[in-house]
């Protein structure tokens, strides 16, 4: 299994799209952070050097979660899109092991990427004079909460790819879900559902407070449950599928 995981990491490293996606994630995060910085002094903006400013800036990495999820999704759908599934499953006929290795590889890469993004944004904020150059418990707690979120999002990405397989659809589903459907639910009086949805669970796991937010451990379980619920039936279908 370690060999397969190592192979999946190699596969990620040697694909140009991986680096393009990560660069886009970094650019989005920095753009978001820049928007927050330019709003200092505006209405409702946190004060320069405040703990809230730091939280807002580091929260900008949230937008970087989408590219991370995309990496996981494309790791699976790309196999069908580029028809590499044939050679992949020839070398490893136990298909579910390949898919599991992709999930584990995603869960390893996700935290690394989020730590990188947090470090870049933090440095950006410090250089811009918006964040104090201190490492305290609050900062460490934020980082610690980001790590499982990043792992879960990468896992969810793989699971979405396994469940959907069609690259175009699989890539579009997460943004539509998180940015549109889950955002609109409260407007239809369905706020009670939010804590149990992936976006609500992510916010709760990151320490965000809202009505009915689950405790962090429960939010983590909810995210893992979504990933499993997508992964298991999808993987079973792929294992039985004719690769033509």
């Amino acid at each position, binding site marked *: 299994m370690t060999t397969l995981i190592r192979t999946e990491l190699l596969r990620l490293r040697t694909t140009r799209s991986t680096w393009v996606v990560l660069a886009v994630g970094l650019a989005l995060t920095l753009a978001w952070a820049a928007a927050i910085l330019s709003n200092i002094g505006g209405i409702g903006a946190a004060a320069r050097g405040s703990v809230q400013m730091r939280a807002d800036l580091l929260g900008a990495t949230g937008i970087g979660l989408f590219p991370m999820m995309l990496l996981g999704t494309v790791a699976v759908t790309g196999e069908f899109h580029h028809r590499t599934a044939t050679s992949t499953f*020839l070398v490893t006929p136990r298909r579910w092991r390949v898919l599991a290795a992709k999930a584990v590889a995603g869960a390893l890469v996700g935290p690394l990427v989020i730590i990188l993004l947090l470090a870049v944004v933090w440095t950006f904020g410090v250089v811009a004079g918006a964040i104090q150059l201190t490492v305290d418990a609050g900062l460490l707690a934020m980082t610690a909460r980001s790590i499982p979120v990043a792992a879960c999002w990468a896992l969810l990405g793989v699971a979405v790819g396994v469940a959907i397989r069609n690259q175009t659809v699989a890539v579009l589903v997460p943004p539509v879900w998180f940015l549109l459907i889950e955002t609109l639910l409260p407007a239809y009086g369905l706020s009670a559902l939010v804590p149990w949805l992936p976006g609500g669970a992510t916010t709760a796991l990151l320490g965000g407070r809202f009505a009915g937010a689950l405790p962090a451990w429960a939010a983590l379980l909810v995210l893992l449950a979504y990933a499993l619920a997508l992964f298991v039936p999808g993987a079973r279908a792929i294992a039985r599928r004719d690769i*033509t």
Partner: protein
Amino acid sequence: MSAISVHGLVKRFGGVVAVDDLSFEVQTGTLTGFVGPNGAGKTTTLRLILGLVRPTAGAALIGDVPYAKLDRPARHVGAVLESSGFHPGRTARDHLRVLAGPSRIPTSRVDEVLSEVELSGAASRRVGGFSLGMRQRLGLAGALLGDPEILILDEPANGLDPAGVHWLRSFLRNRVDGGGTVLVSSHLLAELALSADSVVIIKDGRLIAQGPVADITGGAAVVRVRTPQAEQLLAVLAARGVSATLDGPGQVVASGVGTEVVGQAVSEAGLVVYEMSTHRAALEDTFLALTEGSRP
């Protein structure tokens, strides 16, 4: 023992029967051609053998186990199935490294196979820019990674220029002479007639014929003799019970015998002969005859 054996294999896609109760064997140490018209079920059969497609009924075995049960299959069977199975953004070398990973094949072997298929110069180029012929070679390199005893190739000559086809033919011949087994599919029999030891012919998913090339075309062998004494030769052959006919002035065609018998007769009768040759019905003709009626 046979290297590959197919037992009562059936594959239905929805209502379409792609492979219909197919059984055949590929003997170890032979180059076997797998031929049939387009749409005969060749690709599906190869994918069934390789565990990529699940049979509706029957089984395909590598040695005595199904492909999916092999431990590190790349070390036993190498397959080249289609030219499009590459991530265009990955380099040739990285593509092979990814394939080598799960079988724990070292990177040094990647460089070896690249040079074996004469692609070393393109090792760090992205596959997206490769020609069809280069992709075929890269596919072959991937199949060779584990130095497998069995090679399975689906229409490998597609996209190769004549020099490439020649190169491939001698390459496969060398593998077989070195003790390997090769199963190669083609819709063009002429490509295989020169090099294959044995052929399996299918049509509409069913077996039409299987056996050594000579056996399949064998019955139709004739000896053609050019001689100024055609009438005498006819009489001599008739006296020996050999059926022979006059085919134009100075041309005798004897059927059902080899050059040995005709040569002996010529010598004993003291006749003059300018030319004598064996004509086997071309494999292509046999193939067309066997699969007749497949065209609309």
